[in-house]
């Protein structure tokens, strides 16, 4: 696939039934980041091999990405990809130390951390897009301004 350099492609690895995968996909969708979902690391490698993107971010649970004797992380390093791993329960201190030594691996403890740690890391393009989206979707007033207070509801319908 011929793809232009300069914008971010996110590859989310894991079963779609995994809540972490769903939440991650939602976050990237909010930021309008081009995202590909791969069921497992094998299809992710297949997808990555045909890719010419400049910035690629691979997100998944550590256990999902740390397959085949950690070869995926090595490949990612060679290709200059950034991997974002959810440090799930199975992650040992040794895993963490080994992986932390690699510059291209970032750990998160929950999906929301992706926003903090990852989105900022990438090009202005992502930030601008997100800003654009935020601007486009941001209501002129705070939604809470329109919500009736309990006192108002009580007055309307009786306490």
């Amino acid at each position, binding site marked *: 696939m011929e793809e232009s350099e300069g914008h971010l492609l996110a590859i989310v690895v894991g079963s779609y039934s995994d809540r972490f995968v769903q939440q991650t996909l939602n976050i990237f969708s909010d930021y309008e980041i081009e995202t590909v979902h791969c069921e497992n690391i094998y299809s992710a490698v297949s997808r*990555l091999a045909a890719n010419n993107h400049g910035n690629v971010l691979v997100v998944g649970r550590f256990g999902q990405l740390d397959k085949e004797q950690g070869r995926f992380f090595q490949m990612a390093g060679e290709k200059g990809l950034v991997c974002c791993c959810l440090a799930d329960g199975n992650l040992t201190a040794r895993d963490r130390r080994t992986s932390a030594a690699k510059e291209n691996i970032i750990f998160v403890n929950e999906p929301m951390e992706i926003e903090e740690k990852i989105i900022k890391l990438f090009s202005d393009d992502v930030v601008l897009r997100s800003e654009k989206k935020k601007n486009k979707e941001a209501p002129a007033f705070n939604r809470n301004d329109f919500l009736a207070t309990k006192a108002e509801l009580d007055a309307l319908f009786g306490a």
Partner: protein
Amino acid sequence: MPSLELSRMVSNQNTGRILLAGNVTGTFLDADAVAKPPFEVHSNVLDAIDAAAKGSFSAIGIVMSGLSERLNSVAKAIRNANPDAKIVLLAQVYEESAAKKLIGISSNGTSVADDYLICPVRTDWFYKYVSGGPATVETTGPFVDYSAQMRIKQLERLATEDDLTGLKNRRYIWEFSKQIIKHAAKENGRVTLLVFDIDYFKHYNDTYGHSAGDEILKQTAVLIKRCCRPHDVVGRIGGDEFAVVFWDGPAHKSATESERRSLQADHPKETIPIIMRFRKELEKTQISLLNPENKGALAVSGGLASFPRDGSTVKELFEQADKALLEAKRSGKNKVYLVGKHESDIADIA
């Protein structure tokens, strides 16, 4: 075949490259020969998928051993990475059913794998086989290519199957047992061998003729096959002698170590209901060439031996199962005996 000869063969045929994914050690492919073009070996499957996507390969061989539950994902990824290559699975005999299943699965409208070969596979033979595929169709024509493949398949079938019953033959049963015992030893698994023959078979043959005898054999083959699980291997190993190799099947992988140990202690108890069902079916059978009064007269005697309890090699298992079979015959036929429990038929154990 020496590498030099293979290189000559390669230069004589204008074929593409061949990618081998996985650990080729158990395939018996010549490691020196496959280390050079036209072959490219990647023991790490992630590298193989990457290579499949980037390189132009006319054929890709996937070594099934060691992939177990990852096999589907790996094969699908390779297919998606290189939709045009002919994908051949290199399977051990006990992986044949998994290979067949995978060929039936499609990904993006294409079968995940095109064919499978049972190991051991010779390098020159493998090369001829895969290079006889799409890469040579233009020069030799699809019909010739197709017939060559069919011939190979036919020869393979003749070498491993019993002509009369369609069951596996003695050679196959022996080879399969050898490999599955090796596999079970590694995986802490179990294998049970059943050897049985038809009671009074000679009498039926002599009284009603060989056609009646053949019909009994065919009918017995159909019934035993029907009663066994899909992964059990059934064969005719002699005149009226049959063998069934019961093994744990692919589901065994998911069992924990302690579950495996407790299953092993129970072994071969779980095969007993299968044999009982078979005996019942046999009793109900009516062989058209026999007199109607013979309905229900068909019976078998058998012996059961299991790995690792009764023996650690194929030879030992066959010897033990044969001994149990002889005991069953001596004690009045229509019985299946377990090694070490010659005093009672399996029906009493169950």
